[in-house]
């Protein structure tokens, strides 16, 4: 208590120095937290754009489908399969899909297309196509002969709403697949590749077109808690060990994970530089604090104050300032991150084009994950203590005679 009391009073003895020290900690936590919030928000967007709104966090395929994506490697999802998946606590929805490739032809142009059969109701849980419709309308009950195509594909094929579209491809087990459909609408995804290639149709229509009755290429799974991906994958793998392959989005899209990791790495380098700058700032302030009081410490050691007590007193001073600084840093960071979480930054022009070229929405939404803030606060707190160690050791090793001569 004696040393705490001393430390507390010393903190307020030189208010300007204390405020500068605390401010440097606040600024460090603020910059690091906001930077991380922005980055993590961006990664969440990337994942949401590609995983949360298209592929799903987990997919179940027939064995070997992922390595050899042909209709011959499709599965038939029985009620029992659905039951087993939905028995998992974190599963919110299961979305069946049948995907293949075909040649799409309008009156004058033809283009390669990705044919995607969707359950028109279940799909609302994943890509929510109705919201992405650019022209025309989403599928209704009697639209078994209709397709919705990507905006860019529509331009390339030079077709209009209501025009006919011919699809020619290969169906299940080599069957010939041909069909004539009406263009009911156009759709746009953040992913430009989809906009160039996608032909969406009701799943029954796709199964008929591809001669793959009841067959699916994938069951996409949506989770309530994205933190549960690994656990759910593991549980499902044990349930479907022999017949199906259960894959997480990280396994299916390693390039996305790598892109995020690479970007996170460069972000960490920036933050590391920030830490170093802050660390040396703190080192300078604490060194100044100790140098100013060298004479005083000399006197204290002379009259019999144990060196450990001086270290303890200074340690408490630094600890208190670090605690106040990191707490204030979090308090200042949260409103900023919250504001940009609620009101994401909408990019336009060239920046938007760059985002779209990566298949991302041109929106930057900050993350409000608690870990973003407390991890930065803890890191800056530890940096403060580590960079204060040297001055503390210096103070504890003072020679009283030399100190009093200073």
């Amino acid at each position, binding site marked *: 208590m004696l040393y705490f009391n001393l430390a507390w009073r010393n903190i307020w*003895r030189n208010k300007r120095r204390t405020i500068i020290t605390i401010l440097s900690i606040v600024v460090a936590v603020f910059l690091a937290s906001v930077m991380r919030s922005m980055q993590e928000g961006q990664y969440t967007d990337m994942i949401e754009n590609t995983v949360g709104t298209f592929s799903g966090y987990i997919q179940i395929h027939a064995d070997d489908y992922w390595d050899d994506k042909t209709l011959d490697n499709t599965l038939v999802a029985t009620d029992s399969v659905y039951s087993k998946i939905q028995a998992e606590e974190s599963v919110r929805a299961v979305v069946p899909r049948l995907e293949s490739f075909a040649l799409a032809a309008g009156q004058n142009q033809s283009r390669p297309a990705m044919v995607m059969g969707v359950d028109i109701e279940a799909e609302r849980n994943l890509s929510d196509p109705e919201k992405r419709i650019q022209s025309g309308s989403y599928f209704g009950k009697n639209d078994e002969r209709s397709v919705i195509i990507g905006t860019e594909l529509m331009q390339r094929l030079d077709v209009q709403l209501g025009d006919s579209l011919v699809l020619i491809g290969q169906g299940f087990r080599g069957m010939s697949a041909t069909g004539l459909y009406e263009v009911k609408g156009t759709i746009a995804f953040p992913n430009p590749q989809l906009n160039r290639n996608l032909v969406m149709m009701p799943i029954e229509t796709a199964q008929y077109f591809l001669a793959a009755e009841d067959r699916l290429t994938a069951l996409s799974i949506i989770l309530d808690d994205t933190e549960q991906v690994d656990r759910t994958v593991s549980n499902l793998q044990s349930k479907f060990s022999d017949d199906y392959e259960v894959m997480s989005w990280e396994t299916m899209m390693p390039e996305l994970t790598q892109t995020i990791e690479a970007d996170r790495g460069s972000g960490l380098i920036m933050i590391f530089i920030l830490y170093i700058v802050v660390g040396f700032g703190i080192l300078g302030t604490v060194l100044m604090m100790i140098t100013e009081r060298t004479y005083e410490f000399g006197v204290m050691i002379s009259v019999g104050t144990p060196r450990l007590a001086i270290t303890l007193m200074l340690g408490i001073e630094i600890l208190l300032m670090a605690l106040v600084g990191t707490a204030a840093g979090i308090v200042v960071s949260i409103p900023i991150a919250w504001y940009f979480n609620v009101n994401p930054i909408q990019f336009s022009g060239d920046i938007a084009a760059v985002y779209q070229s990566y298949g991302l929405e041109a929106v930057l939404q900050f993350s409000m994950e608690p870990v973003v803030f407390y991890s930065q606060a803890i890191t800056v707190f530890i940096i403060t203590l580590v960079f204060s160690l040297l001055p503390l050791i210096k103070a504890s090793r003072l020679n009283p005679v030399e100190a009093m001569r200073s």
Partner: protein
Amino acid sequence: MRYAHRAESNYEYSNSTKESSDECYAAESMIPGVNTHPMTQIEPETSNLKKMSIITTTGLTKVYNADQVPVHALRGVDLTIDKGEFTSIVGPSGSGKTTLLNIIGGLDEPTEGKALIDNTDLTTLSDRKLINFRLHHIGFVFQAYNLIPVLTALENVSFIMQMQGRSSRECREKSIDLLKEVGLEDKINKRPSELSGGQQQRVAVARALASKPAFVLADEPTANLDSVSTAELLDMMLELNEREEMTFVFSTHDQRVIDRARRVVTLVDGKIDTDEKR
């Protein structure tokens, strides 16, 4: 090694006797007519303690290697100071006064020779034990007062006792008594910045006495004081010296202090030139 071991033992003995006398000794001992200082109470030779040496230096030599050129600050100083003496160490600048005080105060170590304080050879103590020894055996008064600026007068005095591990209540009561003793009972809650130089030096004396030291070492204690404050401080210290047999050792240039000292040791070029007892 044998000698060193004996010296350490003496130190332990010295500590234990001081602790055993803690309950008996109180700051009240400074109150006129009450003489309960531990040094006058301990053990069989109590009656002989008055003649006991508090400080003994033998062949004390200190050489500083300033830029490779050796500077002889002390050249074999033999000095004995008995309990109850009021001694001024004087001499021109560079004569070795401060070095001598630093060594007998356990703040510096000699190049050669021994410094025995309270029968303990300081040269044999580790840094940690030396700090502890200073805490329990030596009271310091500095030229610039050197109180802890964030503590009140009362807290400055009780700080030393708290470090000695005494209870808060005891520290507070004894600190108040000591501040009364130095005439500052109405300033106990003032911080150093709210006190005059003379008052700060009185608090410093109270702080020096708080540890119940074997002697008080004062380095130019009046250098920053005006005539009135100097006279008052000297009166107070002389009274403590006479009444409590508190040993005071000064280094000073101040003729007012020299005039009132009972013994004046003059150092010239690191050697004792004269040693005058009055």
